[in-house]
């Protein structure tokens, strides 16, 4: 297992370097650069003034030179400075990351806590009213865009209860209740799609597992149904769920941007989106690198967990 993990980490390095090159080039291929943004609509700006602005922002030199300046800084822990407000990019990322991590964690927690039991019930009570309700609910869940649901929830609570989540971020250790009340609606918004996927996946694998010989043997030996489901079947049915959760961590880190914007949560997705509009290259590059790193790390974690959940895999 140790050798496997090391091999995966070594493979991750060229992947990340490839990501840095890719994102470095992609943002520069976008029409317009930050100079165009800064001078957009300006009717009296000469090329000389624009060149001075480029020098002021450190945008001189060829692309390889600019890339090397940036990547060598990254290896030294220096992510550079925002072109829009000169704040250290590391400060920007560190300020936004806890918000997104909490949002993603809560979203996935809701998805798993609700999705797994629903999937089990749906499988055990196959073709019952519960099963049909869960399957229809799952279909609706994968169809609803998270940003649409977020807006709907906000408008509903404001109209029905005269309440919206608190606008100012409170850390969970400062005031857990205020923190939870701020995150509950956005977490629900981003959880629904994953919840539906988890529910459907658990249902499908449970049905498969429940049809296995060893399950029939356990039932024949008189093991009660609850023990068969929870102890013998569920553990095997959870393996695909681990895959989904690992995959969704990476997706949601960046994909929660719209929900963050709707609820006024200054997380990573929000920061990245604003940076793209403003052509703030260092922030775009750092945030994308973080998302890529999270993706790779989460998938590595998933693979390790596979070995824990399924001893056959770790032996292989």
């Amino acid at each position, binding site marked *: 297992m140790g050798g496997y993990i090391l091999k995966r980490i070594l493979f991750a390095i060229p992947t990340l370097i490839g990501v840095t090159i890719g994102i470095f080039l992609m943002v520069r291929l*976008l*029409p*317009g*650069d930050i*100079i*165009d*943004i*800064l*001078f*957009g*609509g*300006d*009717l*009296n*700006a*000469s090329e000389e*003034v*624009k060149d*001075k*602005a480029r020098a*002021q*922002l450190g945008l001189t030199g060829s692309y390889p030179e600019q890339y090397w300046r940036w990547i060598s800084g990254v290896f030294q822990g220096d992510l550079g400075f*925002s072109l*829009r*407000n*000169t*704040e250290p990019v590391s400060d*920007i990322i560190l*300020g*936004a990351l806890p918000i997104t991590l909490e949002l993603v964690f809560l979203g996935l927690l809701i998805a798993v806590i609700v999705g797994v039991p629903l999937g089990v019930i749906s499988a055990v009570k196959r073709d019952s009213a519960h099963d049909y309700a869960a399957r229809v609910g799952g279909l609706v869940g994968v169809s609803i865009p998270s940003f649409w649901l977020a*807006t709907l929830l*906000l*408008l509903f*609570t*404001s*109209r029905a*209860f*005269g*309440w*919206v989540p*608190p*606008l*100012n*971020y409170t850390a969970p250790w400062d005031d857990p209740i205020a923190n939870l009340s701020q995150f509950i609606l956005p977490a629900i918004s981003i959880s629904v799609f994953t919840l539906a996927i988890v529910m459907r996946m658990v249902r499908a694998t449970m049905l498969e597992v429940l049809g296995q010989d060893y399950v029939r043997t356990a039932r024949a030996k008189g093991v009660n149904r609850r023990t068969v489901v929870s102890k013998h079947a569920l553990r095997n049915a959870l393996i695909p769920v681990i895959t989904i959760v690992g995959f969704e961590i990476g997706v949601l880190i960046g994909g929660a941007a719209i929900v963050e*914007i*709707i*609820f*006024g949560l*200054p997380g990573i997705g*929000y*920061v990245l989106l*604003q940076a793209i*509009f*403003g*052509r703030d290259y260092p922030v775009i590059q750092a945030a994308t690198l973080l998302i890529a790193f999270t993706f790779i790390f989460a998938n590595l974690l998933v693979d390790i967990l596979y070995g824990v959940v399924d001893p056959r895999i770790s032996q292989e």
Partner: protein
Amino acid sequence: MSKDNASEAPDSPRAGELNRRELLVKAGAVGVGAVAAGSLAGGAKAATRRTRATPIKRGGRIIWALESDPVHVAPYGQILTSGHWGKEFAYDSLVEWDRNLNVKPALAASFKIVSKTEILWNLKKGIKFHNGKELTADDVVYSVGKMLNPPLPGSISTTPQVPSIAGADAVSKYVVRLRLKAPDARVIGFFAWGRYAPIVPEGLYDQINVARNAIGTGPYKMVGFNPNDRVEYVANQSFWKTGLPYMDAITLKTLPDEQARVAALRAGAIDGATLSVDVARSLANVSDLTVLKGPNAAFRELQMTIKVGEDKPWHDQRVRLAVMHGINRADIIQRVYSGEAEYSGFVPPGYGPWPLTDAELKQKYLKFDLVMAKKLMADAGLAKGFSVTMTCFAGQDYPQVSAVVQSQLKKLNIDVNIVAQESGTFGANNGAGRFDWDLTGRGMRGDVDGYVSEFHPAAANFKIWYPEYRNVKAWRGIGNGRIELDPAKRLPIYQEAQRQLLLNPVQIPLVAIKKYQVVRKRVQGMYVAYSDFNSGLRNVWLDG
């Protein structure tokens, strides 16, 4: 309950339920680009309605939602309008506009134009910055230096907005000499506008992180700024205007999503916000809310390029005039804005005494006359029309206006292909002149010159956009107007320049829109500022 602006007489388009809904496009907020500074003097008509006044009560906190993040709050070099939203309550300038855009004394009690290139400013005595330091001439000298060369995080991209200021000297403790490189009438308006001209204490950039903090003379002291989150202010108890401010604190919360702002308003989580016309009007019957509206300097226009080496149909003046008279602005006003917009020339309505009258525009220069337009096209040998690509911002009302213009110009056999672009892409292409036509919006200017200077050959963008354009009469007016310091003499110069530009247009001004803000009933004294800032918040109070 909504409050219509009784002082305005909106156009009266044809009646009937019109097909606006099919023009609505969901879009995010898009900031309109930077503007050139200028001076504005004399009586102005940008009066807006405000919330009904009740006896003033002191205290409390108001929470206002911003539709875009300020990014940073440095006093100089801030190109974004939202950047000024974040810092405007911390700073003042030498003069200021009142709500009708009349220039009033501010930090300077008076100024004297000594010569065409020298202005003396007499500062008020005893004004304190938020750190307790008294305002003196040295602070103004320092501030002017930063205006001319804004350090990071500001951008020197704002320096073209600054008039021909050479520098400033302290004549005495409270007297400043402002030196100009050349006669430039834009100076007074530049300071009154304040966007690029706040006065800060000497040495500010060495004392604090200006990206996150502010020290000024404004009615509120900034106590915190979290990017993408909020700006926090508390009252300046030593504010130089006795009796102000009324509030204890202001919070500016960034909420880019419009529906989130609506939800927060309904729930009472915020006290006010800017909203689009349709959304604001939908809240007209909400008992706890008041809908405010006011004229806005952001008029829409159709830009064309006339470049060397190209032989495009609109290089012919007759074709441009055909487009000018082939567009039915009343139709745009009704279909896109439900009647809540006005005809606009090159200087938008409400910008002081400078714009041409509504009657003059409707009856002559912007008159919808399809017969004349077709004749002009025929005279130019283009009765069969032509095809053109028109780019526009992908957000706000631009796609809708583009669609209406497209449908109208079909009658002239002009086939307009609309390409909506993201703001960065649009700005890049626009700045480089990489377009044939585009539909865009102008913004606020400090001086009337800012609305016409782009048509003069001395302007940088002229060389990029329309180097083949000729309009000597307009050029003469623009050149003379900039160096004439007497407002009474400037007025006829600029009005004639506008007429000449409308007779031989290279851009087609369309309509001036209105800005809507919705506040909770407890907010008193608020008004929609013409400048696109939230200046009304300086003087509000809470009733209950």
